[in-house]
């Protein structure tokens, strides 16, 4: 057994974090100082750049959780459960941000904080509540059963993601706009470029936080193992 530890995850975290910080600074600069103001909504439309980027990143996080859940069910390796649960936690946090920033945008644009008749808003809330239940389920079981149930749930809950994504395209009556359609983005390139930068920055934030969470869980797990060994020897 080697006495040295693997320093690569920490190096990866440093590189991802530095790139993400630079991209986020560039995105904020581009959104507020370069991208043109929307003709209809004015400055309120600036919320779009991070609101939509965080929404897409949260759905990506749930996708990663689903893939890691499948990998756990196939291999029974605990590291996949760690990736899955960390992704769900990050995705859930981002979903809460999407709902809050969306409500602020709705108040500014439509004059109301929430519209219960809009399928996009309601289905996104359903996705959020489904993933909040993931942690209730997780805390209700122990050991291998906990990992297995959580993996199955993360795969099953992912079915709600396409439901939320396509709801606004299928339903007729809605107030939530559809920016990205099959014919392309409904915005000029001068806005689209800064949305893409924002999206990459938010995905970078997801990757950075995911790596940080995994490193902390690894350290926590190692300390618990040493503690158990010392207590057993005493």
């Amino acid at each position: 057994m080697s006495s040295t530890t693997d320093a690569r995850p920490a190096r990866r975290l440093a590189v991802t974090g530095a790139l993400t910080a630079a991209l986020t600074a560039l995105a904020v600069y581009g959104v507020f100082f370069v991208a043109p103001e929307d003709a209809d909504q004015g400055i309120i439309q600036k919320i779009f750049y991070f609101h939509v980027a965080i929404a897409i990143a949260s759905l990506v996080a749930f996708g990663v959780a689903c893939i890691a859940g499948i990998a756990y069910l196939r291999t029974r390796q605990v590291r996949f459960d760690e990736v899955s649960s960390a992704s769900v936690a990050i995705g859930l946090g981002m979903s809460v941000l999407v709902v809050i920033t969306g409500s602020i945008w709705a108040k500014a644009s439509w004059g109301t904080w929430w519209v219960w008749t809009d399928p996009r808003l309601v289905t996104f809330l359903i996705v959020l509540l489904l993933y909040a239940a993931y942690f209730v389920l997780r805390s209700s079981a122990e050991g291998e059963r906990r990992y297995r149930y959580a993996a199955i749930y993360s795969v099953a809950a992912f079915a709600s993601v396409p439901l939320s994504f396509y709801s606004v395209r299928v339903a007729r009556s809605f107030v939530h706009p559809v920016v990205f359609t099959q014919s392309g983005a409904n915005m000029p390139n001068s806005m689209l470029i800064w949305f893409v930068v924002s999206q990459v920055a938010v995905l970078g934030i997801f990757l950075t936080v995911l790596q940080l969470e995994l490193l902390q869980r690894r350290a926590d797990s190692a300390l618990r193992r040493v503690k158990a060994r010392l207590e057993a020897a005493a």
Partner: protein
Amino acid sequence: MSTGAQYVVAAYGVVLFALLVYVVAVGMRTARLAREAELLARLVERAAGEDEEAPVRTPEPADASSASRT
């Protein structure tokens, strides 16, 4: 500041606040890990100290007799 700008500041403020809360949470978890690591280091040091203070074992009489026969 216009009303629209206030909403934009509020939305981005929420995101920034959430990031700050996360940084504080990570800081608190790191502090807990550091405390546990310190505790484990003390336990290991104490265990090592007890090993050093343990009395030196003397040879068994049977071992001594068998050694004299050879």
